[in-house]
């Protein structure tokens, strides 16, 4: 059953800024859903509307069958973990955890039992008497989580809860959050700008841009079948290489034209993009789908090689034009002082033993089945 359903949820601020535009989203019971997008995409606004902290301009927020648009946050029975924790600084950890229960006028014995249980889940047993200022960043984060857990809420909201932790702790807390989620089985809506967090944590992930939902799917599908160029380049790290391309037929063989280079397409792939014959489209390939080839393929100049041990990230340039947002970003870095001519416009993740050197030339084998195609005007994926 749907625990949270958002329907046509829209937020327009008094200044006329549309922060969220007609968001439809269903979070099932026990599901962990991640709202992800670049900053300013409306994800936090959406979360605050679910919490009741932000007034809904139009559309509805429902918990189960109940529309809660006009229910005050106090009476919504949602628990929220804030980005900056928002712990009560003058209260001890025990009092921080117990505050919500006190508000419910829960009996002291039951309250203590719940506080102890939550503290045990998060390993806070020895810190109950401390004040927030006596805790480390990670411990504060746990208290913020604990404050939500003790209530055993039907709906659990998290607003970038890990963004203030250092990289190592963040990875550690990711699995901790999931562990807690599994033990509580509460419908959870989790906001982040970090696509890695989204991919690793979400049962389903909703990708937002400029207040509009781009795609709502499992992490696997988002990666394998992105709905548009934005999702394709946003999900996956490093980002997908996307280029402006053309589609021609040389003889009877359909070919993809990338700058001055041509890649032959097998019939079943060509059929997918048949409607774009003789027209422009956007072609994308993920860095991990490129491999060094001794035969024909995509020829590129290697600009920079970063060896990470298990792999090497090869920045290269091909004589094709980068598409959309990626091109704009490249322009910016070119203006920032990097010579535009030598700026890389693509990236590959290769085996560290592949012997690729900066300044050299390399031929990538491209599996046409691993290519992504998008409409150049709408950005939508083609043939899926």
């Amino acid at each position, binding site marked *: 059953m749907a625990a949270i359903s958002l329907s046509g949820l829209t937020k327009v601020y008094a200044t006329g800024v549309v922060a969220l535009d007609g968001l439809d989203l269903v979070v099932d019971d026990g599901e962990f859903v991640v709202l992800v997008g670049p900053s300013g995409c409306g994800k936090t606004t959406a979360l605050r509307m679910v919490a009741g*902290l932000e007034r809904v301009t139009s559309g509805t927020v429902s918990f189960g069958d109940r529309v809660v648009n006009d229910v005050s946050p*106090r009476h919504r029975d949602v628990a929220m973990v*804030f980005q*900056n924790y*928002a712990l009560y*600084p003058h209260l001890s950890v025990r009092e921080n955890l117990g505050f919500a229960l006190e508000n419910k006028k829960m009996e002291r014995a039951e309250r203590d039992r719940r506080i102890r249980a939550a503290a045990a889940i998060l390993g806070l047993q020895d810190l109950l008497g401390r004040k927030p200022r006596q805790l480390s960043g990670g411990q504060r984060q746990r208290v913020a989580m604990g404050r939500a857990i003790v209530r055993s809420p039907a709906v659990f909201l998290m607003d970038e809860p890990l963004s203030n932790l250092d990289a190592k702790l963040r990875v550690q807390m990711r699995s901790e959050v999931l562990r807690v989620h599994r033990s509580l089985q509460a419908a959870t809506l989790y906001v982040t700008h970090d696509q890695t967090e989204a991919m690793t944590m979400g049962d389903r992930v909703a990708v937002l841009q400029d207040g509009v939902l781009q795609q709502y799917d499992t992490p696997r599908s988002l990666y394998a079948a992105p709905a548009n160029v934005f999702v394709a380049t946003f999900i996956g790290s490093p980002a997908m290489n996307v280029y402006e391309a053309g589609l021609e037929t040389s003889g009877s063989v359909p070919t993809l034209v990338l700058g001055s280079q041509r890649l032959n397409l097998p019939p079943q792939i060509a059929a997918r993009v048949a409607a774009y014959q003789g027209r422009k489209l956007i072609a994308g390939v993920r860095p991990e789908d490129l491999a060094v080839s001794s035969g024909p393929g995509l020829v590129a100049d290697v600009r920079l090689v970063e060896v990470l041990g298990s792999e090497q990230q090869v920045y290269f340039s091909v004589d094709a034009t980068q598409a959309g947002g990626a091109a704009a970003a490249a322009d910016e870095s070119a203006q920032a002082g990097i010579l535009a001519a030598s700026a890389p416009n693509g990236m590959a993740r290769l085996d560290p033993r592949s012997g690729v050197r900066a300044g050299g030339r390399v031929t990538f084998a491209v599996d046409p089945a691993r290519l992504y195609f998008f409409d150049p005007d709408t950005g939508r994926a083609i043939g899926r």
Partner: protein
Amino acid sequence: MTDVKGRGDPAASQRAAALPGLRSDEGATREGRAAKAARRRAAETESTIPVELYGLRRGTVTLLTTLAFLFAIFTLVPIAWIVINSTKTQANIFETFGFWFARPFSFFHNFSLLFQNVDGYGTYIQWFGNTALYAVLGGAGATALSAFAGYGFARFSFRGSKVLFYLTIAALLVPITALTLPLYLTYAKAHLINSLWGMVLPSMISPVGIYLMRVYVDISVPRELIDAARLDGAGETRIFFRVALPLMVPGFMTVLLISVVAVWNNYFLPLLIFNINTRYPLTVGLGLWSERAQNSGNAQLFPMVVIGGLVTIIPLIALFLILQRYWRGGLLLGSIAN
């Protein structure tokens, strides 16, 4: 030593540092005056704590310090005078040097007079009690109202909130003398003449306090904390007392001090509304004594006015010292991650 902060110019210090070999060569003609000065400056910074005052020149700092020192003396002189003269007899107040002690030492005699109704117009101790009562009620009321209003203005956006706030601030601009007649007439109708509430109610309105609390809440009570408390199911009253107020303590204590001092020192309002001696606060009572000492031949009241003035300021100093420990930062430590 080349790392001289905010003192002199770093280039000069560096030059000085580059010339260690010349150090013993005092008076050598090839040393320019600038190099000497630079070396002296560099040497000074080694031995003294560098003074940093907005990067001002040393001469400017000295001038400003001197001015501040003179101003401090100027403000402390009357207090010194009152302390010294509280130990003198009536004759000595007028006949001996004002800024030194004179025999006989009559501090305790003067002090005991404060408890006596010397000329039949009232006792100091009663006025002291009145003042304390007015100040406690008015000051506490002003502080409470300022805290509520400041929090409301800072953390709720409601229709007309801005207009209301500006009206409050505008009240600061109206001189109290302009309100004398309307205030008196209103009081007469409302039977507030000679009434405790006539004194306390107006004292409870403090535009400065409201303004201060609003600003203080803005910087010290994060919205996230209030949001968190709402989601934790707390009502607004509970949020105010349990979450916001503990964070407002330094601002709260400041407003408490300002309000108590304002009521304690208020002369105009009680003069206007009280015409029964037993209702007077200290300001009006001492004023009455002072006037009778000068104009009605009750010269024996002079020492009492002096020591009365001294005793009047002691509770305020005590209050300041007590409240001082509440002025501390870091109340939010650990609450909000940046």
